[in-house]
């Protein structure tokens, strides 16, 4: 109970930044780096958690820049031969480091030293991995050296392979089939941490680490714990956590969820608002035969990706509420020329057009308002709220929580709310998504 009151004040910096940026926060397509040759450096640094903690981690840095968590998302093109050179600048005592890229084919490694699983970069040294990005999809990468320690420490990242024929403006597809097309795409890289392990590492007491007593108390999406997930990308006060997770869409659009489980545990990821259709697992379309398209795709409201694995889901939202979600007193029309029951422009569900709101909402004094409640049940309408209430939804968007349904994971080291949580919001068509 106390947590709600104290957490409220932590949310002000979140939304102050969002409001400063105008009608909608700046939304990046998936942030990452493109190319065919990459230089990554493994190094140590600290990350911040919303409860005020600062945790030593090991991560991958692009070139020899600042380390980032997660490592840079590598955005590749199908068919390219990729070369990743990894240099080991981890602190003394950390040992070797490496990269595994499960799902990539024809991989070879040169240089470095032979480790148990793959070739590794010794302290100060380098190793080069080469593979062909033969198949489009969403993949993970992580260290293959003492993985139970190094994955925990933060040496994880995502790989996205664009299919042949992909075009950023005219042909956004995830796989080589039109049924994998999308309008907006977002990365959900899931991870967790047990800060005891990081404290032992920082204190030079690595022999005190006991993996069988693993007890995570932090959970992250794209390297940040809520509410930091909803800050802008690249905020200056989270220099080692450049990525955010703030998905958004319009009614009737297709939002591609690229879920990468970089942790060691299962997390049931739940999308409020609607089901998502899982079209691929581990970078492979769910198809009955090559070229058939995702005919084995299935809808889910909660997807649990095995550790190390990935899933691609298409989320599509309209309302079938049984009442008109745009209200009944503003003279709007629902025009369905193509016979799909949806307004051709706004994707309003025409069978519900003109139906009045079916109940009376309680008196404001009897109601607790959410921070993301716009004051009105209607999409695109914001209504006044009592002083201090709401305020984080000036456009009257529809917000839906997307989160791990293991609710313990919605905390930051004993403080609720936090953890593996973000808010997806549906903007009315009148509110453009910036940089979708």
């Amino acid at each position, binding site marked *: 109970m106390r947590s709600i009151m104290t957490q409220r004040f932590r949310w002000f910096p979140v939304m102050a930044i969002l409001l400063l940026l105008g009608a909608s926060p700046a939304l990046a397509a998936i942030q990452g780096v493109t190319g065919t040759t990459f230089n990554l450096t493994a190094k140590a640094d600290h990350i911040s958690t919303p409860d005020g903690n600062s945790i030593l981690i090991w991560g991958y840095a692009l070139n020899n820049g600042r380390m980032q968590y997660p490592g840079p998302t590598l955005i590749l093109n199908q068919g390219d031969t990729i070369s990743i050179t990894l240099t080991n600048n981890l602190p003394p005592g950390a040992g070797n480091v490496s990269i595994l890229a499960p799902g990539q084919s024809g991989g070879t490694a040169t240089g470095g030293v032979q480790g148990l699983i793959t070739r590794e970069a010794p302290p100060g040294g380098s190793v080069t991995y080469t593979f062909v990005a033969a198949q489009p999809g969403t993949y993970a990468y992580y260290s293959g050296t003492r993985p139970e320690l190094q994955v925990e420490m933060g040496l994880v990242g995502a790989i996205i392979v664009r299919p042949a024929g992909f075009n950023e403006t005219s042909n956004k597809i995830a796989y080589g089939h039109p049924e994998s097309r999308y309008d907006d795409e977002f990365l959900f890289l899931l991870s967790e941490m047990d800060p005891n392990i990081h404290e032992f590492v920082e204190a030079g007491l690595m022999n005190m680490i006991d993996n069988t007593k693993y007890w995570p108390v932090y959970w992250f999406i794209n390297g940040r714990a809520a509410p930091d997930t909803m800050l802008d990308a690249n905020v200056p006060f989270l220099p080692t956590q450049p990525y955010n997770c703030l998905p958004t869409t319009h009614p009737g659009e297709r939002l591609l969820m690229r879920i990468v489980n970089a942790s060691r545990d299962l997390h049931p990821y739940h999308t409020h608002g609607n089901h998502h259709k899982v079209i691929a697992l581990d970078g492979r379309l769910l198809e009955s035969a090559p070229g058939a398209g995702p005919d084995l795709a299935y809808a889910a409201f909660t997807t649990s990706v095995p550790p190390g694995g990935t899933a691609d889901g298409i989320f599509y939202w309209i*309302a079938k509420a049984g009442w008109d979600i745009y209200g009944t007193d503003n003279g709007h029309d629902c025009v369905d020329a193509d016979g799909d029951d949806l307004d051709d422009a706004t994707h309003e569900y025409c069978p519900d057009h003109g139906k009045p709101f*079916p109940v009376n909402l309680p008196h404001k004094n009897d*109601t607790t308002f959410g921070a993301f*409640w716009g004051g009105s049940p209607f999409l695109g309408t914001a209504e006044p709220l009592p002083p201090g209430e709401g305020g984080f939804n000036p456009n009257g968007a529809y917000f839906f929580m997307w989160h791990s349904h293991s609710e*313990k994971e919605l905390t930051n080291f004993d403080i609720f*709310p936090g953890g593996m949580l973000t808010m997806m919001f549906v903007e009315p068509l009148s509110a453009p998504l910036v940089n979708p």
Partner: protein
Amino acid sequence: MKGNRVFALPGFFLLLLFIASSPGWAAITVQCPGDTNGDAIWTGSEVRPDNTVCIHLTAGDGFIRMADGYLQYIFGFNDFTGTPPDQVMDEAMLSQQFPAPTIKVKEGQNVYLTLSNVGMVQRPDLFDAHTVHWHGFPFQTPVFDGEPMASISINMGSSLTYYYAAPDPGTYMYHCHFEATEHMQMGMLGNLYVTPRQDDLPDGTVLGSHVHHTGDRYVFNDGDGSTRYDVDYPVQILAFDPRFHDASMNVQPLPFAMMRDTYPMLNGRGYPDTVSLTPPAPPDENGGRVSQPMNSLITASRGQRILLRISSLSTVEFYTLSSPGIPMLVVGKDAKQLPAYFTTNSLTLGGGESYDVILDTADVARGTYFLYTTNLHNLSNDNEDFGGMMTEIVIN
């Protein structure tokens, strides 16, 4: 394009609602079309509109007993449909049940669910609001989704009415989403499912190679009878951390980071209470009321198709539920018919997932079988052996 003729009804009844329930301030107020005295049922001269269901749930606190006898303080829901609104607070306080009452509706029904917050008797220092999150209902809007950060929640002593046109059939679940980690661990969790229109087809309707007869029931509008079942049982995976519940009862800081569930349960009880037809002894602490009414005993005649509506609202762990002697035909996940059914002997669920599983007993010898977790340490009621997440399937 104008709406269809059904659209007129909500407008008409909205007027009746307005008459019957002037939204006051801090009052238990039921909104149910055609119901004028606020008890959410139609009696006397009250007329029930077609295809309409009204439910009145309360939210508050209560007490239950674990299978080893241990008393647990809970937050929960209870069903007070039929109780006059001015009696609800008195009767509902401290009466909540675990799991929450099962909600079963038919596809397309107009569902009006009034949620009344009756406060926490054991914790007068708390003024928590509550919600009902209809987990998995497709094409949601925030106002009725029950997720408080994006929506509204109802304060103590007051009521909020949710409206749904019951959506596509399948196995869903519901829970409070206010301060979710706390309220869900404390027990505000229940079964929810929607039955398909296909159940009500005229006798003799041909569905592919299956001919529908009155009384045939299906999981989905499958069009071919492949999800037909004879008996159905909701099986909800739940688990408690007694240290968390005790801290809540004793007004102590809540141990979120150390949360560890050691009372694994199905439908609110641990074995052997899962197979007991009599509820655990009602605790004195809630006035001696039955607070765990639901068992998980599955019985069928040999040859029948048993539908297990399996869901999990565990807040911490994944659990693998196994039926070692009777194969599971998985026909649905998350309230959607699977494009390809598959046969297995165990399913692994995290919180917020559901599966529809048909057990075909045609080739199964009569006898007693077991449905239990293969995370075998969870066959315990905390420090008591031979308990936990297990129930029985009796084939006669």
